């Protein structure tokens, strides 16, 4: 698979948080705690984590079924978290993405971006899938925002 030769879809969601980027970056990196924050996450098993590189397996409830996702993440020198999925969700051929953190006046802004290749071909299915995917990202950012406030 060479993504240069494939057409991939793109999503972006942003949200402001009332805390420092460094605080939030830790919440996003500590993937083992996500099951306490976001209810679709059933289990997380971290295979490797040296603080800059991380590999984990996650079982999540998406689209009405449990899915097994394997993800590798990299913390960049700029403080962003990049990732790719050697085992993406079942309805994706490919997924990569990033969490970008930027301090701003009253806290920080998080930008979530996703690049993916869905298995479905029909435009109607694709539109519905992209909408659900975007809503899921918005919901995740909301849940993380709640957990930081608590």
């Amino acid at each position: 698979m060479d993504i240069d030769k494939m057409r991939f879809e793109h999503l972006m969601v942003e949200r402001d948080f009332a805390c420092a980027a460094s605080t939030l970056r830790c919440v996003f990196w500590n993937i083992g705690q996500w099951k306490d924050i976001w209810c679709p996450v059933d289990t997380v098993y971290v295979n490797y984590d040296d603080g800059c590189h991380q590999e984990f397996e996650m079982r999540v409830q998406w689209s009405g079924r449990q899915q097994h996702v394997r993800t590798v993440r990299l913390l960049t020198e700029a403080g962003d978290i990049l990732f790719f999925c050697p085992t993406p969700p079942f309805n994706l051929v490919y997924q990569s993405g990033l969490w970008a953190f930027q301090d701003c006046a009253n806290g920080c802004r998080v930008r979530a971006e996703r690049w993916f290749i869905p298995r479905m071909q029909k435009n109607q299915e694709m539109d519905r899938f992209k909408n659900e995917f975007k809503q899921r990202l918005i919901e995740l950012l909301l849940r993380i925002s709640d957990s930081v406030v608590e």
Partner: protein
Amino acid sequence: MIESSIIIKSDLQSVFDAFYHLPHWVNVLHDVIDVDLQYDDGTHQVFTMTVVRPSGMETVRGIRIADKHVSITLCQTTPPPGFLKMHGYWYFTPAAEGVFVRAVRDVKWVEPEATGKREGNLRDCLTRNLITFKEHLENGH
């Protein structure tokens, strides 16, 4: 940081591809006897590699991320025996005579007291591999 570098008289794409395409390494480096590329999307790789060492066979597991024609970043999630951490980079820079390749390793040892000798051995290994890639790319060996 431990590093070594070399100039390879070839074009940037050929040099980058030779270092990126891990399954090809068994044809280049005599001590690499098996590569299992579990994932490769053209930018990200997950692999296991088995190499022959004087002490026996070693199998490492790692991830690599490419910035095409610029660099390859390595993290071994299962490093070789004796290493707590093995991170690395290859940087590729066009030069007048070909491509300047710089290999860098950031490591932590299980037994830090023996660091000096082991650093020397690792640097020698990096240099040997760069020379082997150079010979392969320039002469087809």
